[in-house]
């Protein structure tokens, strides 16, 4: 236990008195009760735990709490609002891109991170961005469709939900 660490999670400042070496994923799920990010491999390989840090995708299982001190973290819960989904979420619902759904947090956050950076990604860019997010159900085709649709919805002027 050390001094308390402050960071902004989904817009709210949080003070946490935890070991700075604690993985961010554990902090989010266990201390902040944000269960959007999933525990998959714990080694940064599968992407199920993805969150946005400063608007950029990050694998929260391999980032320590100390590494995001003073930074802005957005989880799946911080994307949309009740009754108003983020365009990425809306696109994933529209395309029925879930099979078991475990990877979807990572897929949605990664697409959000991609669109934050590049408003109209090509199909190749989408594939490249999602390349290291593992889906074991084989829903890849639907996920690609959803990502394409998300870019269209975003461009159509629906307010993006990630970041500030």
């Amino acid at each position, binding site marked *: 236990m050390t001094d308390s660490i402050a960071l902004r999670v989904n817009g709210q400042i949080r003070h946490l008195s935890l070991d700075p070496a604690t993985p961010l994923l554990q902090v989010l799920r266990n201390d902040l009760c944000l269960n959007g990010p999933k525990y998959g491999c714990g080694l940064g390989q599968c992407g199920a735990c993805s969150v946005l840090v400063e608007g*950029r995708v990050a694998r929260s299982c391999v980032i*320590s709490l100390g590494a995001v001190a003073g930074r802005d973290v957005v989880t799946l819960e911080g994307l949309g609002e009740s009754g108003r989904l983020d365009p990425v979420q809306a696109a994933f619902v529209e395309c029925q891109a879930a099979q078991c759904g475990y990877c979807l947090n990572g897929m949605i956050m*990664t697409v959000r991170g991609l669109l934050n950076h590049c408003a109209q990604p090509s199909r190749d860019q989408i594939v*490249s961005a999602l390349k*290291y997010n593992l889906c074991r159900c*084989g829903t890849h085709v*639907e996920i*690609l469709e959803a990502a394409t649709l998300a870019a269209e919805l975003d461009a159509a002027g629906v307010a993006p939900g990630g970041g500030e």
Partner: protein
Amino acid sequence: MWRRGVANEHACFVRRTPPGSRRFRRSFRPPSLCRGRPAPDVAFHEGRFGCSRLLDIDHASLGEWATVTTVVEIANFVAVVAADPDLARQASRRLRLHWAPPPLLDDHLGAGGERSGGRGAVLSGRRSDGMSRRYGWPNRLRWGERAGWVIADVSPTRARLWVDTATPEALRGDLAALLSLAPAAIGLSSERSDQEGVSLGRLACDDAAADAALVSRQVGAPVAIWLDADYQRDVDALGLAETWDVAASGGHTLDALALGYGAARPAPAMALLLTGVTESAGAPADRPARSPYRHANPVREDDEGGESGRASDRVRVFAEESFFDEWSRRQASDPLELRLRHLDDRRGQALIEAVRQRAAWHPGPKPDPAEDGVGLLTGRGFAYSHLPDAKGEWESGTRSAWIADVSVDPVTGSVQLTRLVVGQDAGEPVDREVLASALRQQLLPESTLLLRHADGIDEWGEFAAASRATLPAIDALTLDAGGHAPPARMPDALAPNDTADSPVSMPLRLSAQTLASGTAAIANALFDATGQRFREPPFTAARIRAGLCESTGGDARAARSAPFLGRRRWRWVGAAAASLISLGGAAAVGLPWKAAIDPVPRPAANLYSQATIERGRLVAEAGDCAVCHTASQGGAANVGGRAFETPFGIVYSTNLTPDEATGIGRWSYAAFARAMRHGISRDGSHLYPAFPYTAFAKLSDTDLQSLYAYLMAQPAVASPAVDNQMRFPFNIRGLMAGWNLLYHDPKPFTPDPTRSALWNRGAYLAEGAGHCSACHSPRNALGAEKRGDDHLAGALVDGWEAPALSQLSKAPVPWSETALYDYLRTGRAAHHGVAAGPMAPVVAGLGELPESDVRAIAHYVASFMPTAVDAAQASEIADDRLALSAATPPGFDAGERLYNGACASCHEGSDMPVYSRAETSLALNTNLHSARPDNVIQAILDGVVAPSSSGGSAGEMPGFRADFSDSQLTALVSYLRARFAPDQPAWEHLSARIGELRGASSP
């Protein structure tokens, strides 16, 4: 008994859209899904077919499943159909069948059996010095190229099938016989374009297609079957389509060569055999052409079979060329020369000569399988073919000579074609670029079938770069009309991605005959690499692995490298011991024992000022006292007990807290200073130089006093010393007196007046409290730091390599003073990476020092490093490095797969910014360019913990100790080295070192 479901794990059914479209559509369910058929015992032997006979189907065994499934039964063919693949699979598991055992085929062999008995192999006389070998070609080369649906929609008048067959005509013929339809009424839709045609043979997807067609006709609805590796059992059951017996006698020149054509009965689709449509194998294969070699007996004319054709030329060439290779290797002669001696054809000779020169073929067989240092076996093989043209004319026929280089991973058995030199003389001028381009387009599917390895970790459908890096460098040459080769050019090592874009001036389809010698060239190269002869394709990873295990009875590399390592280490230790003993004898005469210094009461806590204690704290941080004197992470600081393995035994650090009984509480400053400067404990005994008093002697009196003040002001913790476990004679501490005489200079630091104040400050910090050289300088046989050019030349510490800080630095981008400062201050330098291992706490400690001190250390260390480059040059070098590592080196499939699965998500770049991505490419990582793999192995085993002062950005990496086996680590590290440090030689004895480090640093 049951096998093969149409079920896959996904509930998303796909089918192909009508011909012309290459896209898959989802959410389409064929009305019926076939579960497939059971597997009776099937025997297919020398052209005759037999299987167990179906006696009875116990329909009651289906129970309630009977209402939702249909059982199709035709002779020995049984299949279960359901509306859902899972249903079909579940039901088929319950269905009980009773079989009669298959007939004993040996009784029914008849003529076919006799023919196979090596009839053509019999040579008149001289059998004593002869050799006879049998080669075979399988009925099914593989189950398919990829998993997928096979769909059939059959009505009484016509049939439509969606299947990726490699042999559409053979399949059409089988279906026509099976369904009693005219071939024209059978529509085959395939995603395979003509350009991708494979001429190697049939795939088990034909069997699946026949199954589906049969069931579809029975149930009157479209039927889908999931084709996957389950069909491998058909591949095994159907055995060989052709065998060839080759025999010869003689010596370096064969006196006689005989070719015997074995049973050549290509098996039809399994459904035809099970339903009894075909009792035995079909018509014998077409009769092959004669051999181009002298002394080769003509192939018997009395073989059955009507029309002439050359369908099995490819197999004949494979057998003959493999045999030539076997013969010459047994005779220890050059296989290429042997061909030349037996050829009368001048153009053929010229072609072989041209290829020999282009590939720089060295005559003479290799005595031992070669190993390239990474653990890959490499080999080279040659093969030649000459086949008559369409009219049967030999002179105008195609001559083709191949030299193939392969590398084999002995752990996974996967084979990579690394280079091909192909020469062709087709009697008419062909542009060599066109030939090379045609080879590129056709070799990929061919080599995939011949050498297929496991799929990658995650394939994104049609977007997967599945074909990446599987093409070798291809060097094609053609002869001009006069039979002369064009001037030699450097082999065009082509990037695989170029394939699609390479300009093709005119289309060229290579016939199966042109590619005929390719298979033999690969088989011969495989023998060269592994010492194992593979007489039947395909050369799959599993077969190679099995062949290697058979030949070595275990891990060949471990057996070869382990004794060597052991010998070397012991010789070294032996020499050290011998010289220390003689040294001790001399020293004991001249040096008296040191006296003890009397204990004093512990100094009062308020004796020293806060300012002095704070200064002492900084000295302690600069010297990282706590790193060595703390037993475990999270334990009390400075209580000692941490073990240090040295070549001379194990030394334990001692209790530095002011505890009066077990620590230094009763040490006077005089005793403390003597220990720090001379390495002599308060009681007069000598300390081992694992405690770096050789560096601490340089400390100024003021700093030493401050350090004493700081240590005495810390809380006292009782922690008894752990006894050292030094080997004789190193356990005699008195011998250290002689060591000190030789290697220790207790003089305090004296500034170099020719250098700047900044440099001198850096030297004082680095050589004194910082004791950089304690880790970064190599030590001699007696454990003393080497000086002169070897100062800061790099060394091994605690299972990690402290890299060279001198001219010997292997950093791909030379270190600049700024980069060193960034690294020491933040634990990260833009072109170098992050501090890890024992360096991480050093950076954390330096974080306490004033910025000017860290800059001074950087300035001092930079003065030893290779000429610094400015920022622009550094960026340029870095860009070059990144470009070099962009391509994947061939022959590291296993490592590449592990990298893509475990590492690439953080270590590969993409267009999108990723917060958790490693900022520095591995291509710039000093550790991957080092002469030793230690730091790479350690980082993968236990990860990288970011120094606490790194400014919060991610620099962390998880450890993979529990996730990778030693052999996986070997494959991964070999791949990393080959890809990211392509200009460095492969690491030797990698797997042995991995085993040592895993054991040594196990938590």
